[in-house]
C-alpha cells in the first residue's frame, strides 16, 4: 500500500503510520508515549486492592491464634495432670506410670496437631505472598491479561457473596486463580448461611463464640439477634416455660444495651404467633431468617476486612457513572458503549452523570478522538467531523464530501477548521 503525501504538510506522514497499526499495538504505543500518567494510573488502581491482601491475612492470623490457643490449653492441662499425679496421696506405681504414659501419647498427639497446624499456616502464608506477588507482577506488557484476571477475581467475589459457590469454583479453577480468590474463607460462611436458611441458629452461634472478642470490639449485636430469633421460635411452638428460661439465660445479659428490642420480643409471650398486631406479627415472619442471613454476611465481611458490598457492584457503579452522558440514552448511541445496552442503562439510571472539565470530541465517522493532530472541521451545515475522516472521503470521491447525517454534498475546500480548547 502506498501512503499518499498529505496536502497540508510533511509532518503528518509520521503521524499516520502509527494510526494505521492495529488497535492492540496502538494501546501499547500509548503506554510507551505517556509512561508517567499510565504508571500513576496503575499505582492508583493497585491501591484499590486492599481486600485482596487483607482477607488471606485475616485468615492466616486466625489460624495462628487458634493453633496457639490449642497448644497453650493442652500444655497447661498436661502440666496440671502431672501435678495431679504427683500430689495424689496414695498412687500405686503402676497407676502413676500408666498416667504418665497416657500423657506422653497425648503430647505426641499434640505434636502431630501442631505440625499439621503449622502446615496450614504455611499454606496460608504462601497465599498472602502469592497475592503480593500478583500485585507486583503487573506491568505494561501483561496489563490486559492482568486486567482480565482482575475482572475474574471480582466476579468470583460476587458469586461467593451471592452463594453461587459452584460457578465461583468453576471459574477459579478454569482460570487458575485459586490463590487469588477466597473460596476457602467463604466455605466457613457457607455452613452458617445454609444452616440459617434451614432455620437453625447452632452454627451461627458457634461462629459468634469463635469470634467473640472481635465481634465485641465492633459492638456487634448479631448474637443478640440470633438469640431473639430462637426465643421467637420457642414462642411459636407455644413452649412458653422454656421460652422464659431461655430469655433469662440468653436475653437478659443484653438488657443493659438493647432493652427496647428485648421488651418488644418479650411481649410476644402475650401476643402469640397468630397475632394480628403488626408490630409483633413481623417478628414471626419467615423473612426474619433472610434478615439474619444478611446480617451474618455483613458481620462476616467486616471481620475479614472485606467491603460490605460486592466488589463488582462498587466497580460497576463507578464505571457506569464515569461513562454516563446524556448521549448514552439516545437511539444512535454506538454499540461499543456499554450504556447502549438496556441492562446497563437500567443499572445506571439512579446514578449521577459524569462530569468533564475539557472538551473531548469523538468523530462521528471514525469514532476517534479529534485533537490537534486530527483537528475537527466544520461542514457548511455546521456538522463536524475529523480531518482524517474527511480527507479520506475526499480522496475517494474527487474532493467532494457527503455529510453522513444530513446527506449534504460539498467540496473539501469549503470546510472550516474549528479550534477547540
Amino acid at each position, binding site marked *: 500500500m502506498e501512503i499518499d503525501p498529505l496536502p497540508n504538510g510533511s509532518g503528518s506522514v509520521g503521524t499516520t503510520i502509527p494510526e494505521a497499526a492495529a488497535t492492540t499495538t496502538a494501546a501499547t504505543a500509548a503506554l510507551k508515549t505517556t509512561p508517567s500518567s499510565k504508571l500513576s494510573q496503575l499505582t492508583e488502581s*493497585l491501591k484499590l486492592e*486492599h481486600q485482596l*491482601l*487483607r482477607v488471606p*491475612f485475616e485468615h492466616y492470623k486466625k489460624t*495462628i491464634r487458634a493453633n*496457639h490457643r490449642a497448644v*497453650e490449653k493442652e*500444655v497447661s492441662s*498436661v*502440666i496440671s495432670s*502431672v501435678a495431679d499425679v*504427683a500430689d495424689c496421696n496414695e*498412687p500405686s*506405681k503402676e497407676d*502413676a*506410670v500408666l498416667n*504418665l504414659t497416657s500423657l*506422653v501419647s497425648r*503430647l505426641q498427639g*499434640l505434636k502431630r496437631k*501442631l505440625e499439621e497446624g503449622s502446615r496450614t*499456616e504455611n499454606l496460608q502464608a504462601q497465599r*498472602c*505472598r502469592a497475592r503480593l506477588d500478583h500485585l*507486583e507482577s503487573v506491568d505494561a506488557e501483561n496489563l490486559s491479561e492482568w*486486567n482480565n484476571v482482575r475482572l475474574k477475581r471480582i466476579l468470583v467475589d*460476587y458469586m461467593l457473596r451471592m452463594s*453461587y459457590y*459452584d*460457578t465461583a469454583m468453576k471459574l477459579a479453577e478454569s482460570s487458575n486463580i485459586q490463590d487469588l480468590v477466597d473460596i476457602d474463607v467463604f466455605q466457613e460462611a457457607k455452613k452458617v448461611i445454609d444452616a440459617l436458611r434451614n432455620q437453625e441458629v447452632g452454627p451461627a452461634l458457634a461462629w459468634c463464640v469463635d469470634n467473640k472478642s472481635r465481634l465485641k470490639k465492633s459492638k456487634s449485636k448479631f448474637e443478640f439477634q440470633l438469640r431473639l430469633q430462637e426465643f421467637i421460635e420457642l414462642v411459636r411452638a407455644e413452649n412458653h416455660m422454656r421460652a422464659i428460661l431461655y430469655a433469662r439465660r440468653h436475653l437478659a445479659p443484653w438488657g443493659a444495651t438493647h432493652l427496647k428490642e428485648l421488651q418488644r420480643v418479650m411481649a410476644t409471650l402475650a401476643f402469640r404467633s397468630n397475632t394480628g398486631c403488626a408490630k409483633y406479627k413481623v417478628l414471626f415472619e419467615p423473612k426474619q431468617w433472610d434478615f439474619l442471613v444478611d446480617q451474618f454476611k455483613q458481620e462476616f465481611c467486616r471481620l475479614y*476486612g472485606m*467491603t460490605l458490598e460486592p466488589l463488582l457492584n*462498587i466497580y*460497576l*457503579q*463507578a*464505571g457506569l457513572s*464515569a*461513562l454516563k452522558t446524556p*448521549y448514552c440514552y439516545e437511539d444512535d448511541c454506538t454499540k461499543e458503549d*456499554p450504556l447502549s445496552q438496556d441492562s446497563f442503562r*437500567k*443499572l445506571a439510571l439512579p446514578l*449521577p*452523570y*459524569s*462530569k468533564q472539565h*475539557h472538551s473531548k*470530541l*469523538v468523530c462521528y465517522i471514525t*469514532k476517534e*478522538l479529534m485533537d490537534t493532530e486530527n483537528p475537527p472541521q*466544520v461542514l457548511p*451545515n455546521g*456538522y463536524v467531523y475529523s480531518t482524517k475522516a474527511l480527507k479520506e472521503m475526499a480522496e475517494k470521491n474527487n474532493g467532494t464530501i457527503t455529510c453522513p447525517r444530513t446527506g449534504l454534498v460539498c467540496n473539501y475546500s469549503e470546510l*472550516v477548521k*474549528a479550534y*477547540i*480548547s
Partner: protein
Amino acid sequence: MELNSLKDAFDRVAKKQKLSFSKTQEVMDLIFQEIEKAIEMMQSTTFDYKSVLAELKKKLHEIAPLSQLEGTQKELNIALSKYPKALEKILNPDISKAYRNIEFDSNTVNQIIASHFYRLGLFDVGDCFINETGEAEAAVAMRSLFQEMYQMLEAMKSRNLEPALKWAAVNSDKLKENGSDLQLKLHHLQFVKILQKGSRDEALKYARTNFAPFAANHMAEIQKLMGCLLYSDRLQDSPYAHLLSPTNWDVVAEELTRQFCNLLGQSYESPLNVTIAAGVQGLPPLLKFMTVMAGKKQEWQSMKQLPVPVELDKEFQFHPIFVCPVSKEQSTDDNPPMLMSCGHVLCKQSINKMSKNSSKSFKCPYCPSDIDATQCRQLNF
C-alpha cells in the same frame, strides 16, 4: 508503589511465626523428655517413684513452658498487628466510600454476567452460572449467538478454515458493506496453507476460483500472493517468509471476531469488561473526593452529576463532549456549541452574555478577532 514495604512487613510476620513454631516445638520436646525420663526412672527399682514424681512436677514448674512461649508470641503479635496497619496506610482501606446506596437488581446483574461468560467463550461457566442462579435466562440467546463464533475460532486454532470461510461466504455482502476484506484474508490464509503443503497446482487452482472477485480492489495483495507461487517449496527462505508467521492467523481471528460481533449488533469488547475497566479508572478520583468531602455524604447520595471530573482513557470516549471554555459547562440542546468567525468555539449562552444578547460585537477570548454574534454558527459534533 510501596509494595516492597508491604512485603517486608509480611516477611516479618512469617519469620516470627516460624520462630514461634520452633519455640513451641522446643518447649514441648522438653516436657516430653522430662516425662519420658521420669517414666524410665520409675520403672527401674533404684528410685523411689514418689520422689521421682515430685521431682518431675518441680522440673516442669521450673521449665514454665507457657511463660517461655510468651516472648515469641508477643513478637509475633506485634508483627501481626503491624501488617494490617501497613495495608491500611498504603492501600485504600475502604473502596466502598464512594458507593451510592442503591440496590442493583440482581437479575439484571446476573444477566450481564452470564452474557459476559458466553461472549468470552466460557460456555461451561456460563451454563453453570445460569443453573445456579436460576435466572438470567435471557442470556441464553447470547450463548447460541456466540457458539458459532467460537466454533470458527476453535477450528482456526487447529488450522481449519472451513467454518470461517463458509460463514464469510454467506455474509459476504454484509462484510463488503462494512468495508471489511475478511473474506479475502481468509482465502489468503487458505492459499498459503495449501502452498505450504507443497502442491503448487492446487494452490493455483484455489487462487483462480477464489481471488477473482477481489481483483478490482485488492490487486496488489493478490499479486503478492501469486508471487509466492514461485517459491512454493522453499517459502520460508523466500521474500514472502512473513506470510508464514502464525501472527497472521491471530490478526485474522481478531478481524473475524470484530466482524462477527459487528454483524450481530454487539460490541467488540465485552461491555462488562469496559465498564469495570472504566470503574477502576474512575474510582480513585471519586474516593479522593469523598475523603475531602467526608461531611457531605448526604449530598453524594442525590447528586445528578459527579462532583469531580473523572478522566478516562480515550478508549472509553464514546460520545463527543463539548465543554465551553468560558462557562465550563457541558453543551446541551438548549445551549449548543457555536463556531465564531475566527474558528474558536464557545457555548451559545457565553456568546449571548458577552455580546449582551447580540447587541454588540465582542472580542474572542482566545484571539484578537472581533466577533459579531449574529455571524456565529451552531455546530453538531
